[in-house]
């Protein structure tokens, strides 16, 4: 009995000691510890992802040859169609470059694309965060847009050596500007994620919608990136504007809910768009530059 009491007492003392130690540690040491933990955890996350891929592989292996032949045939057709599309896009790109040069129009932000598998998606933050299997060693930087096809999935918030954390469109940490389909392209709206429960519907809000905006008749209005902010390329789809746009209580703007791309709920693979040159915001986030605003002048 006494031994138990003494053991419990020792545990409390240890807890208090280590908590106190953690609190008084220099921030650099704490940051190092956190980073070290993330890197220590990374192989386990990789393993989980690889295991899931392996399970998928064996699941496909168990299919009948007929099914695989049919799938291969479909894939061949899709490949052929994509080949054609690549050719036509190549022509369009050349024409675009020629016209830009002729008009001396500034080149759009250039991106390098890095494809990444989703490593982990925790149930507690299902609509807020995913972890992908690409990190600093692959050139991923904080703030990079993350897309799937032409749909915005989110943007990178934290980068580790081999993994990165991505804030989804439905995360409170996400915000960007957008155009509404069918609206005057000189008017921008604000898109921001909203905190929601894991099992609830994904939530994001479109605000500052002009009062005179009406969605195209009989259609669901797409919400698209503006490309003005220097982070997202223009014309990517953030989602669709749900019906039932509401006027704010002051009656001078409208707000609406954003339905994100349906891929967001089961996304397995994404593309990270890494800008060729770092954005100003990215430079600000770099710890070495933080607190030295004079250098930015």
């Amino acid at each position: 009995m006494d031994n138990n009491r003494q053991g419990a007492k020792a545990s409390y003392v240890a807890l208090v000691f280590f908590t106190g130690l953690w609190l008084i540690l220099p921030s650099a040491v704490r940051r190092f510890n956190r980073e070290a933990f993330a890197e220590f955890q990374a192989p386990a996350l990789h393993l989980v992802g690889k295991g899931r891929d392996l399970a998928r592989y064996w699941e496909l292996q168990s299919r009948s040859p007929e099914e695989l032949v049919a799938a291969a045939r479909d894939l061949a057709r899709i490949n052929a169609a994509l080949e054609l599309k690549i050719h036509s896009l190549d022509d369009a790109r050349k024409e675009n470059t020629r016209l830009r040069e002729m008009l001396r129009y500034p080149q759009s932000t250039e991106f390098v694309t890095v494809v990444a598998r989703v490593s982990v998606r925790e149930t507690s933050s299902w609509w807020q965060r995913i972890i992908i299997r690409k990190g600093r060693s692959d050139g991923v930087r904080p703030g990079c847009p993350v897309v799937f096809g032409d749909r915005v999935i989110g943007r990178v918030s934290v980068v580790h050596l081999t993994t990165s954390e991505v804030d989804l469109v439905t995360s409170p940490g996400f915000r960007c500007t957008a155009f509404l389909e069918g609206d005057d392209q000189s008017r921008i709206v604000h898109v921001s994620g909203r905190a929601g429960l894991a099992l609830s519907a994904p939530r994001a809000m479109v605000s500052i919608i002009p009062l005179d905006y009406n969605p195209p008749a009989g259609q669901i209005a797409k919400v698209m990136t503006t490309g003005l902010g220097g982070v997202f390329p223009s014309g990517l789809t953030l989602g669709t504007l749900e019906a039932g746009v509401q006027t704010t209580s002051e009656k001078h703007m409208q707000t609406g809910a954003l339905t994100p791309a349906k891929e967001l709920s089961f996304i397995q693979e994404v593309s990270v768009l890494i800008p060729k040159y770092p954005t100003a915001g990215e430079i600000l986030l770099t710890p070495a530059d933080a607190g030295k605003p004079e250098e930015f002048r």
Partner: protein
Amino acid sequence: MKDVDGQNPSAPSDRISPWRLNAIFFFFCAGFVYVAVGLSYRQLVQNVELIKDSVAQSQRVVILPPSRGKIFDRNGYVLVDNRVRWSVKADLLALQPEFRKEYLSLLKKEKDRFPDRRPDYDQLQQTARLNVLNAWLTKIWFVIDSTNQKAAKGTPKVKSTPDLHPEERMVHPDALRKHLSERRALLFPLILDLAFPNSGHTVTPEEGNRSVARFIEQFPVQGPITLEADMVRSYPNGKLASHVLGYVRDTDILKSKLDDAVVDEFFKLQKIGHVGKKGADGIEATYNEVLSGYSGWELWTKTSSGYNKDLLRFEPPKQGADVALSLDTKIQKSAEEALAKIVDSQGKPLPAAAVMLDVNTGEILALASQPSFDPNEMADRVTQAYFDQVNAEGGWLNRATQGLYAPGSTFKLITATAGMRAGKIDWDDILDCGPSYMVGGRAFPEHDPVGYGQVDLEKMLAVSCNVWNYQVGLRTGPENLAKEARRFGLDAPLLQKPVEHDNNSKTELPNPATRMVVPDRAYKQRIAGEPWTDGDTANTSIGQGYLLTTPLHMACLIASIARGETRTTPSIIHDPGRDGRHLGAEAIGLNTQQLNALREGMLRCVEEGTAKSVRIPGLPYAAKTGTSEYFKKGEKAHLAWIIGYAPADNPVVAFCVLVEGQLDTSTWGGKTAGPVARDMILAWQTAADKKDK
């Protein structure tokens, strides 16, 4: 030491007298009762007051300004709107640790530099706050200004913000001090209008959007710097109708609509208001009560250092009501564009005014005054440089309603009417009109050195013969001339309106002229202390001398003549149910032939007379030109007038144009003011044709 009984005499007796014990007991009981009663009193009787005091110390109300109502023209075209204003603001409460850190750093430096001197702690605190805020502001501008390319290489590809003076990119110490003393609880605005920073700098909407987008997408979401969107006054047409629309300025007095329960609840609470807007000129001022709406409020808990902590309740503001003006944007635009073409030898626009009325209803279709100002420059915070520039140009004066001028030859319509009504002349009487006319031993000249010979009423109006008017004026007499001018309301204040429950302004536009002058004998005696002479009568008969009136009065005069009445009640507010009755109006008092001659004379003025240079083929209209003299900076100059109505056979619109001429007297009614009238009539005709189709 012990006494004989073996007891120590200095030791206290173990027997305490009962009365002492009772006294102690009594005092304890009394103290206990006092405390108990006091506590009960506090808890049971004063509890409500104490709770209120506690709440008053720990909570505050923040008043939220409402959006103002919109202003439309008669066709529903938006003249004044509200646009989204994106402001970058700093949460001073969240910045406290940074302020503290900077303060300690400054304090250490100060002590190291001057170890024997007592530091100025307040100044150090203020400097620390400024340093921290400026550091954040520099980061914000860095994000807004820079493109990706620039951030990496230092070579900008796209310039999205105007070149602001370095001081305009810093926090102003006085602004911070004022904010901390008056609105400490609210977020501190670092950049008031992110899309259009600082008035007076040209930024296109796309450039503005780019600045906003950069901040939203590149600046950290979490942190002490936030982005807020509210509405600010916007005048989409710039200077168009600026004297009618007016502008707004900051106010701390916000109208609220709290119910009694809330008023009681909030009575003791500290209240802070965001800066709101109130009308400072034009319709914005006179219909301020209607446009203002009602402010909302937020109930916050506050920290011991005075910052807001938690939001408890919220009531949104209520936007003001809209106002529909009688203006027609297209006619207004044509009037202003035509006025802008009238320039002096240096290419500077001449001061001028133009008015067009609906003849039947009196509704004002166009009311322009030049030079003008851009109300957008005043929508947020006007710069002293812009204020001084408009002031130097004389742009604040609404010449159409506030400018007082001698009406010149346009007054001859009154002289002719007075003469006919007094029976001194008839429509077909012919007078001999030479190159001058002797009055009181002085030759009063004709503007044509040869004279006009045999002149009747129609010819007089067509050629604007002075000598005819001298003769008729002298026959009619100054009292009859004055009486007739007053009958047409030339000295009556216009744009008056009854005070309504939601609008306590007494006029439709601010400060319309009230010091118009229709002179008579008594007037001259009062002003100059001299008796009236025939020369004064001759001068008055041609619209010179002491006569002073406004272009709006002259537009009303001609609208009245077009209808065959004496008064027109002008209005700038559109009312589709207006019945066409005019306050104080009576029949003109001329027989049909006299009235027809008057109208025919004005038609001939356009077809073959002084306004023939601005006739419109296929659209006959009636007009009377005028060129009066005035002294500008001690030298003689001309005022150019034209008044009239269109079409001639079925009047629908009446107009008046006035131009303040140059010193070289090259300004003439038909030549200078006529083109403006012509353009307004054409704009009206185009609009009317479209409506018919």
